[in-house]
């Protein structure tokens, strides 16, 4: 099922996302389990917004996320695994930057 359209190994997306979440939760990546929720990890709404920002910066993607409705939208934040899957989908859908072009933010 793995989509590798962006040419990036899926494992690195997973590691990067876990790294970001671990940093926000003040834990080591080894402490993060895929089935955990952000709440389990002690990440509050501010921490969530900061994590989303860090993910956008790390992968050069725009995450559809509105703090007024964290569960709404297309970006599933219900668990660590769900976030990884959602980021993988956004990375796969990311347009390949052309040679010499700096990838601009793709805003809806």
């Amino acid at each position: 099922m793995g989509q590798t359209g962006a040419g990036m190994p899926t494992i690195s997306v997973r590691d990067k996302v876990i790294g970001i979440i671990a940093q926000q939760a003040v834990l080591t990546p080894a402490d993060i389990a895929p089935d955990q929720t952000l709440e389990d990890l002690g990440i509050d709404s501010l921490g969530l917004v900061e994590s989303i920002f860090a993910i956008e910066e790390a992968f050069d993607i725009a995450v559809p996320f509105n703090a007024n409705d964290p569960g709404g939208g297309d970006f599933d934040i219900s668990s660590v695994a769900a976030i990884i899957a959602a980021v993988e989908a956004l990375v796969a859908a990311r347009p390949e930057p052309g040679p010499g072009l700096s990838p601009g933010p793709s805003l809806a």
Partner: protein
Amino acid sequence: MKRVVITGAGTINALGLNVAQTLAAMREGRCAIGPLDIRDIDRLSVQIGAQVKGYDETAHFNRQQIALYDRFTQFTLLSAKEAVAQAGLVFEGELAARAGVVLGTSGGGLNTQDENYRVVYEEGKNRVHPFIVPKLMNNAAASHVSIEYNLKGPSFTVATACASSNHAMGLAFQMIRSGGCTVMLTGGSEAMLCFGGIKAWEGLRVMSRDACRPFSANRNGMVQGEGAATFVFEEYEHARARGAVMLAEVAGFAMTSDASDIVMPTAQGAERAMTGALRDAGLNPSEVGYINAHGTGTAANDKTECAAVAHAFGPDADRLMISSTKSMHGHLIGGTGAVELLACIMALRDGIIAPTVGYEEADPECALDVVPNVAREARVDAVLSNAFAFGGLNAVLALRRL
């Protein structure tokens, strides 16, 4: 203790270029939120706001003035002119010494900062105009009002984010009530609709991309506005002696702090501010007919505010009307309480309750009479105006009909 009345009002905001236009728009339930016309809009994900459209600074100010007046100062001066003209006051001698100006703003001269950061960072220039500092400083508007009208008493600026104007007006009220001043110009101004001003808000992920729908179950965030409102607060006997028209009485004021979280509000802090304002005004909850809500249209504010009102007013919460005019003029941040006080005066003086427009779907967590979409006629004797800022700073004013 002295009594305090409002003897003049002025405004410029997205709903109107003066008080009459603004109140007419509120009566009609007109929404001034629309596509923003600002530089680099294509790089913003939030592209709507309540902008003062068709505004030409050169129609109001000369070149020397524009060199010193940021947009937020211009808005202040235009609204102050209308307010002072209505009050019919001239500030000379003893009155000038006992008169001052306290204004709220959050961003101050943010357009000036934005433009000049562009000049030095983006365009790489190494020289800026000599008046950038006096133009961008947060007290510029208050100082220019003081200069323009010869106000020689206490003048300063309050910056408490979204509660700035209410804090400012509350302090002006207290200064007159305590006998320290006879007349205070007060209110607030904001002109934050520039690339940097919106980009910063965008980052917080609380902005709506399509509409401001306070209290509606499908609300999805706040929408910024801009403009100013200025009022003349005057000691009652002074106003009566000169036969001034009194628009309303400022009856009470309270401020509290959540002491909790930098962005998430608590119902307790808001409730204590409302009950404090009632106590300060000597009002019973049953006497309040209308509350101008903070009502930002975010998930967090609206449900917290409704819980606070329900708790503060008990059974009376089901009887009173509460509306958010931000649905029409947007959130003016540091200037918002000032523009919203106009809706309070309209309720008391004209018996017309401004609606919450954009209301589409009932939310069980906001189960109050939010005056959805259409203005209502009702006689009310007392009103509250709520403002709850980021940082957990709450300021509530109580007004009474004269």
